[in-house]
């Protein structure tokens, strides 16, 4: 891009913040109205205007009124398309943001609802992060745009500036409006790749081994020496051999007590990523865990809510 154009663009962005991607952040249900919708002709629109001018001069030169009438009609239709383009964006509501979770370095999936109350809006395009998503917004409903945002660091990731635009109906005019919602996606810390398991206070030796209990685990063939009360008489009656109920109870896993201070000689980020790995592992293996941070304590529990609470606290560690 030539220097002059670049400087002009920079000037425009400074002077007309709402016209450009410099628009200030704003709360989320964003309703587009006439003061923030901009229209310029596209390259095709400019070219077509030149062509119309040529047609006009030709028709005037040959004093051909039929051709002049046709030229006027085509020009009028293309001028009218400007208003139709404006109406595509006018009154559109951008709201209803939902997002998935992601750990730093992964992509986070974002769902954005674009709604319209009255008319159907054709070919609404949303530019996010260099990619264009096209939707048709139904009348009185909403269309959902799905996109992935790359993440790098834990913590709040502000939504990028997005541009809502359209070239409907004839591609001669582009209407656009910049969106800069003041919403952010929470990115969980990146767990470390590998490392030690957390310290567990050792109990009796057969901790973790199966031991007899009263839950039915399986049925097996009778072996000499099995106690009679374990024989499944009813089931054995339908078999040619005796079946024995194998009763077992897995050892209850020990709760993990994860503690910020239990790690020595590690910097904060390493601690966070190790704790994140432990929380992940604890959830995956189905055990209960507690988490102690310098400024908070999450008591022993399990489940998604507990997990998200812990991860949020880790993600937001200063």
């Amino acid at each position, binding site marked *: 891009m030539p220097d002059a154009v670049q400087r002009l*663009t920079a000037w*425009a*962005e400074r002077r007309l913040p709402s016209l450009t*991607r410099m628009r200030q952040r704003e709360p989320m*249900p964003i309703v587009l109205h*006439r003061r923030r919708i901009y229209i*310029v*002709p*596209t*390259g*095709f*629109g400019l070219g*077509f205007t030149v*062509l119309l001018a*040529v*047609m006009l*001069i*030709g*028709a*005037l*030169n*040959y*004093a*051909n*009124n*039929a*051709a002049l*009438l*046709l*030229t*006027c*009609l*085509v*020009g*009028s*239709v293309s*001028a*009218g*398309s400007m*208003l*139709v383009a404006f*109406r595509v964006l*006018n*009154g559109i509501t951008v709201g209803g943001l939902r997002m998935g979770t992601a750990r730093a370095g992964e992509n986070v999936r974002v769902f954005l609802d674009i709604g319209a*109350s*009255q008319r159907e809006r*054709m*070919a609404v395009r949303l530019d996010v992060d*260099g990619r*264009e998503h096209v*939707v*048709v917004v139904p009348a009185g409903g909403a269309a959902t745009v799905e996109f992935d945002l790359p993440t790098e660091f834990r913590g709040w990731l502000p939504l990028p500036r997005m*541009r809502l635009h359209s*070239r*409907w*109906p*004839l*591609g*001669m005019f*582009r209407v656009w409006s910049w969106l800069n919602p003041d919403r952010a996606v929470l990115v969980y810390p990146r767990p470390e790749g590998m490392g030690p398991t957390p310290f567990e206070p050792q109990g009796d030796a057969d901790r973790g081994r199966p031991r007899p209990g009263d839950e039915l685990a399986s049925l097996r063939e009778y072996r000499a020496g099995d106690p009679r009360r374990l024989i499944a008489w009813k089931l054995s009656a339908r078999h040619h051999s005796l079946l024995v109920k194998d009763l077992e109870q897995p050892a209850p896993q020990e709760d993990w007590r994860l503690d910020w201070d239990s790690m020595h000689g590690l910097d904060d980020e390493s601690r966070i990523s190790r704790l994140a790995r432990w929380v992940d592992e604890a959830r995956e293996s189905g055990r209960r865990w507690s988490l102690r941070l310098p400024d908070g304590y999450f008591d022993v529990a399990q489940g998604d809510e507990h997990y998200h609470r812990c991860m949020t606290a880790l993600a937001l560690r200063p």
Partner: protein
Amino acid sequence: MTGFRPSLRARPSDEPRLAPRSFDLLCLTMAFVVGVHAPHLPWWLTAGLAVVLVARWQQRRRGGRHPPVWIKVPLIGLLLALIVSTYGTLFGREPGSAFAVGLLVLKLMESERLRDARVGVAFAAFALMSALLFDQSIVATLIVALGIVPAVMTLRSVEEVEPARMRLRVEVMPVLLALVVSIPLALFAFLFIPRLSSPLWGAPTIDRATTGLSDRMAPGDMAEVLTDDTPAMRVSFDGPVPIASSRYFRAFTMTRFDGQAWSPGFLRRDDSVLEGSARFHYRVTLEPTRERVLPMLDMPVTAPTDASMRSDRTALANQRLDKTYTYDATATGEYRLDATLDPQTRRANLQLPANVGPRARAQAAAWVAQFGGNPTAIAQAALAMFHDGGFRYTLAAAPLGRDRIDDFLFGTREGYCEHYSSTFTFLMRAAGIPARVVTGYQGGYWNALGHYLLIRRADAHAWTELWLEGRGWVRFDPTGAVRPERVTLGAAAAAAVGDGGDSFFNAAWWRSARDRWDVVNQWWNQAVNGFDSLRQQGLLQPFGIRRAEVGDLAIVLAIGCSLLVVVALGWALFQRREGDELDVWMRRLQRKLEKAGVTRRAGEGPKHFMARAARALPDHRNALERLSEVYSRSRYANDEPPPESVSEFSRAVKELRPRRVVK
């Protein structure tokens, strides 16, 4: 380039391939363009382009990519060669449009992406317009205007998210609606765009004359014209209308005869002298003739503006009539033209080629001897001979031999106006009476609906004028002696009479339909094609501006367009507020409270909001609590808010006058 991109990010480099639906529509647009140009393109070019178009359409339907260069380049070369060899040049109206249409179809060969479709449609719009350079009748214009529909549909379909979703009705209706809505602005622009008083560059050259009349008349030449139903001109009268048998419109007078054909010949310089006062005031709308002559009702008193009168009382426009031309003229029914004849003119009007028509000369000499040189009696004798001598009126006359006069008079004895007027003039000259052939139009069809006389090319006619001592030039129509219907009904009708009655074409409903259609055409010619810079200047007369200058027109154009744009903007900006009557009043209440410093938060319920407002504005606590209660009752107690509680709510809102709290 896709427009203003304030971000520095690179635009997506690769445009998507055109959807099949868009490509089909593009093909349809191109087919339309070829169709509207077909009437003037050579048939083989039309056929060839149609084949290329269909082949490309089929090929892409089967998923083919665009054809390789080694097919496209030779095709362009072939197109160039064919056009140059046919027309001899690449420039000018006909070869230019042929080349443009050809290129357009070839462009389709390489149309793959969005950009190609747009370029194609833009160029198609240009080609559509150029078709109107050949024919600007109402039908042609309407058909060409219809071509905008597929073009706009193509543009819409390339913007469409899922082109497969589109159905014909869903696609066509918005386009038609857009066209209809655009008409006011288009008409306004059409009326007020300043016309050029002289062309910027050369007007199109049209080499073939299309007139029904020419300045040369040889018996047997006119038959084609006499069956041509194309309108030649329309005449409306301001005041009395001449009776059917005297509707003679003079175009040429012919004095020179070479034995085969008549041609204008010698004309005196000084003006002829006409005695008589104007009786008929009329206005002629003449179809383009590519000539200068203006047919004038017998006998013209003065020349129309922008035309000059020659000494034979025929009028010549100052420039060639390449478009519909309207002129006002006056005529007199009772007149005396050239009471005295100067010797030179007399000689010219007695001139006869040697060795032609010896038997006719003998016949003339016999009449001179019989009537003692009484011109009227001689003329009557000749007319009586035509009437009683076994002459027949037919448009399919037998071909004449070398001596056209004798052969007709004593041989075939069948023919139409040219034969009769030519022979009659010859006989009169042979008898020593100055005579000349006059060609023009006679008769015409009175359109009662439009109150005008429609004259077709088929009404072309030839008659004779004799110079009689003391009376000047007097019109004689020898054809009328043979077949009076020719003078009252017209050439084709006169030929048909006796050949077998009422034809399908003469059925009353058919005639009335044609009347209406001709009124429409006439209206189109006057309102649209005839709307030139002169008429435009008179456009502002009702507003007191006698002669609108370009500047005035531009101002009116700008003001009018702005007004229309304001109307359109109002439409575009208008947005139905959501909700019902109750919501309207709730919004008003919110505005009032906002001014008082209590703003409703996003997501705050009405009850909570009004409770908060009541805390913030203790003076109005009672009123606000009441409002809250009424609102809840009307909103939630019924499906629809009952009107009486809405009015109660609105009254309370109106009464509430909160003052701004000082914090």
